[in-house]
């Protein structure tokens, strides 16, 4: 009966257009759906706590059965609780934020988005996982391009879907590979049969799955779609960056990690994670738009998860995923409030507004401190979890990253908020989710000990390295305070920005652009060739038409000619026939 968790959102997706906005407000339906999902996933979490229950359904059979199965255990149900909880918060926030937008379209697409993510975390068959994986991608495409009249929004939606589809296709290839060699889609069975598989299959399918995860989670070299995805409405970003979509990639690796280890890809995962983390921290430092800064910070946080998975600490990665979902969605809510109440999201323009509402400032402080992993917030504990298995070198790199992270996050904080200044109005439906999430981010640290018991492969470590990285983070906060709040060293920061700008974004985007253009020109070339081919064949049609125009003279309606022609025909066929008979 685990599918009951997914069902409410599917029902909501169907009911919203059927009932119509006039009869029952769409948001009420969607909110009820999310609430029921949250309730049910919590219920099943308690019911199946510590057990594993798998429910299998036969979809269809062609020489082999195509099974769809979902399973309830600590990991999947905790994820389901988290997804439905964050979705509920996002939907509450949407009530106010999306008031003036087309309601039905928004809530249908959101319901599909949430339902597919819930399905994804519960799936224990690769086929079902892939089905929801694709649906997550498509619904995010629709939502990112929600404001379709904006050129940038529709371009961003398209970019997101094409970039993630690279991963989808590679995921599909991996599924085909694994299914052909094991004859099953069930993830536990596939992982069990790993030792019996040939090395090349393991390596190939592992690499393909890694590509899928990288593209979905916006890691290097696929990361560019995520910052552009900010063109969607802010609640969409809040959901897409925290509980759904990007989290799916990391979750895939968590589920399939034995395959990736068997393929020997952990070092690759760790290296890509570190590259992405450094890159995204530098890029976040470089950007002015709040949502873009948050987007790069999401990329960085996902890189942390990848590093944790690569260092054989999947439980830590899951814990960080959940913690990150909480504080990142809250930060997006805050940036959404800027967009609605002030109309600007550029940090330097916000600085001129001299904001100082405590009801926003405090949660924002909690959020940015969480990005930096400062104690005593929940994120600090998550950082001790992801860094538990680090070697010395990894620890050192992580220290540098911690410094950069604190620097870019508190740069944003100090630029946006002032000690004294303008106060903003507060609305319950917007403030409530922010409060709830910030309270969890503050006091949730204690859950570390709970999670370390219930999640498989969970490690955490508080030692001298923790102290060093935390000190580096505090140093980052101090530097940010000096440079961006007090405006010292502004020339230095400006020149740094130039360098980062030139190095990262421009060059990389050019490369991607030229790859895209090469496909376009290949398409044009083939199109031209095909036209020429078609012209060549056209001659056949031309000559037929020419012949028919000449031979038309024969059909002149003259009965005598016809009779003569018929006679000639009969004689000719008689002659031919007699030749054959003899």
């Amino acid at each position, binding site marked *: 009966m685990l599918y009951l968790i997914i069902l409410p959102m599917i029902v909501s997706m169907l009911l919203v257009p059927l009932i119509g906005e006039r009869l029952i407000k769409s948001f009420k339906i969607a909110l009820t759906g999310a609430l029921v999902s949250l309730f049910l996933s919590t219920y099943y979490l308690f019911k199946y706590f510590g057990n594993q229950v798998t429910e299998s359904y036969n*979809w*269809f*059979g*062609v*020489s*082999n059965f195509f099974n769809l199965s979902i399973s309830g255990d600590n990991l999947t149900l905790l994820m389901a609780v988290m997804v439905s909880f964050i979705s509920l918060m996002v939907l509450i926030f949407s009530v106010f934020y999306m008031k003036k937008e087309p309601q039905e379209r928004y809530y249908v697409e959101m319901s599909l988005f949430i339902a597919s993510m819930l399905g994804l975390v519960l799936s224990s068959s690769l*086929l079902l996982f*892939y*089905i*929801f994986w*694709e*649906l997550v991608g*498509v619904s995010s*495409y*629709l939502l990112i*391009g929600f404001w*379709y*009249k*904006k*050129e940038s*929004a*529709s*371009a961003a939606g*398209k970019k997101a*879907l*094409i970039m993630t*589809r*690279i991963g989808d*296709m*590679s995921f*599909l*290839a991996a599924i*085909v*590979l694994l*299914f*052909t060699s094991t004859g099953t889609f069930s993830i536990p069975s596939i992982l069990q049969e790993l030792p019996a598989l040939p090395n090349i299959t393991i390596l190939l399918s592992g690499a393909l799955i890694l590509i899928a995860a990288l593209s979905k989670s916006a890691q290097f070299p696929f990361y560019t779609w995520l910052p552009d995805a900010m063109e969607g409405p802010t609640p969409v970003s809040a959901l897409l960056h925290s509980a759904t979509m990007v989290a799916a990639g990391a979750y895939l690796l968590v589920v399939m990690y034995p395959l990736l280890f068997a393929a020997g890809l952990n070092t690759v995962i760790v290296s890509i994670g570190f590259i992405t983390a450094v890159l995204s921290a530098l890029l976040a430092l470089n950007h002015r738009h709040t949502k873009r800064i948050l987007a790069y910070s999401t990329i960085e946080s996902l890189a942390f998860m990848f590093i944790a998975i690569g260092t054989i600490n999947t439980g830590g990665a899951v814990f960080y995923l959940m913690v990150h979902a909480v504080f990142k969605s809250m930060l997006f809510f805050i940036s959404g409030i800027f967009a609605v109440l002030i109309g600007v999201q550029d940090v330097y323009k916000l600085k001129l507004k001299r904001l100082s509402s405590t009801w926003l400032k405090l949660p924002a402080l909690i959020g940015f401190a969480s990005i930096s992993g400062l104690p005593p917030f929940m994120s600090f504990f998550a950082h001790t979890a992801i860094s538990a298995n680090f070697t010395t070198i990894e620890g050192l790199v992580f220290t540098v990253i911690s410094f950069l992270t604190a620097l870019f996050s508190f740069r944003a904080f100090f630029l946006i908020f002032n000690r004294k200044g303008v106060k903003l109005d507060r609305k319950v439906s917007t403030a409530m989710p922010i409060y709830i999430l910030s309270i969890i981010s503050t006091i949730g640290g204690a859950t570390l000990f709970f999670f370390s018991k219930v999640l498989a492969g969970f490690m955490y470590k508080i030692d001298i390295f923790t102290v060093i990285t935390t000190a580096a983070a505090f140093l980052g906060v101090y530097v940010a305070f000096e440079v961006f709040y007090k405006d010292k060293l502004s020339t230095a920061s400006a020149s740094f920005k130039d360098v980062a700008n030139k190095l990262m974004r421009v060059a990389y985007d050019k490369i991607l652009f030229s790859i895209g253009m090469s*496909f*376009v020109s*290949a*398409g*044009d*070339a*083939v*199109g*031209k*060739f*095909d036209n020429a*081919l*078609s012209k060549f*064949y*056209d001659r*056949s*049609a*031309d000559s*037929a*038409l020419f012949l028919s125009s000449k031979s038309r003279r024969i059909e002149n309606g003259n009965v005598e000619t016809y009779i003569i022609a018929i006679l000639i025909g009969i004689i000719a066929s008689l002659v031919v026939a007699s030749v054959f008979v003899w």
Partner: protein
Amino acid sequence: MVNLLSLVLVPALGAVAVAINSILPRRIKPEYIAASAFLITSALFFIGVIVGFSGFSIGIINSIDFAFTLQLNGISLPFLLLAVTLPALGLWSAVKEINSGKALFYIFYLLSYASLIGVFISSNLIAFFIFWEIVLISFFFIITFWGEEETRRKAGMKFLIFTQFGSLTLLGAFILLFIYTGSFSLGTISSMISLVPSYISYVIFAFVLITAVIKMPMFPMHSWLPDAHVSAPTAGSVLLAGVLLKLGGYVLILFGSILLSSVMRSIQIPLMLLGVFTVIYSTLAASSQTDFKKMIAYSSIFYMGLVFIGIASLNQIGESGSIFLMVSHGFIVGMLFVLAGILKEKTGTRDLNRLGGLMSKMPLYSVFLVLAVIATLGVPGLSNFVGELLVFIGAYAAYPITLVALAGVLIATNYYLSALKRILYTSLKKTMSGVKDISYADAVQLSIFSIFIIIIGVVPIVITNSFSLTI
């Protein structure tokens, strides 16, 4: 039990009724006659699916080898679904578009309907071939008389020359089969196929292959298809892409992979490579198109390429996948052509460069267009996904390199999303300010397409259980 003859007879009688009606002093509209023929045939078909079909046989000489026999073979049913429903669904587009020579049009339309159904159920090769020819000839007239003014004559002639050549080779194959087995009956032929000497079976397969390559179509014989589509009226395009192309796949499965599988297996790898090449080639060619209809035409070459790969994989999963993909693609491409027709009707153009921002003017149309495009890209829950999945599994098992064709899906994603963006999104073009949304009838027509696409996608057993790979 529903007699199979009724499925052919009802539309044929409809054609006769339209003809008689046109010379009567007091006429009823030919649309009504056609619509009732379509309704009765579809009803008979769906009743038959539930209660079962009975065969029909009438001997000319007292021998089964020459008897005109209508009988379901193992793979008939999914194709019959396409042949029965798609032309009926296209009728509404015809009603809107065809203004001159109505009676004649519906005669040809009903004739091609009857004979399309006939092709899929006749188990006598002579009847098979006659039906096959009637389809082509009526379709030639549909393009040449009711197509778009500038291109229709040339496109019709090109269509005729290509497909007649394909018919000729098919006839050659049939004659050779008759010479060596002494029968035109499909059942007899399949039981006596071992009598055919091996070099002759290669010749027969070569003939069938040429027919399939022209008909599906595959590179380099595809060039008639985009022209035919661009020139044909919408109903014609639905018929052409939805059912006519599937004739090629049907013939290849029936006479290639079932009847002559050993021959096909010996040249399997070149065939699969041809399929992969066609897939990549057609997606690249589609990327450069600016006419929406032509883009859909190239993309249907792409899907038939996938079908070809699936058939050439010669294992059960791949073959089933290609049958599934043909059914699914029939509905999706039919829907896309209807949508392209509406686009032309409402805005006066299909040129992607001249469209833009229509979503604000045509919200309902946008829902259907987005659904159709997502379905064609193989998103799960919609019908193409299962077909693609099966084809790729089957093809990988046969020849791993074929997974390269996945790149084709990626390129298809790119051009279809670009088309969506250029038609629906961004700001509204000034010339488009007077555009109205689709009518109620259009919405019903498109909804039926969508329902088929969703049902087949969510409950694939309706297709996978409807056939077995036997004659």
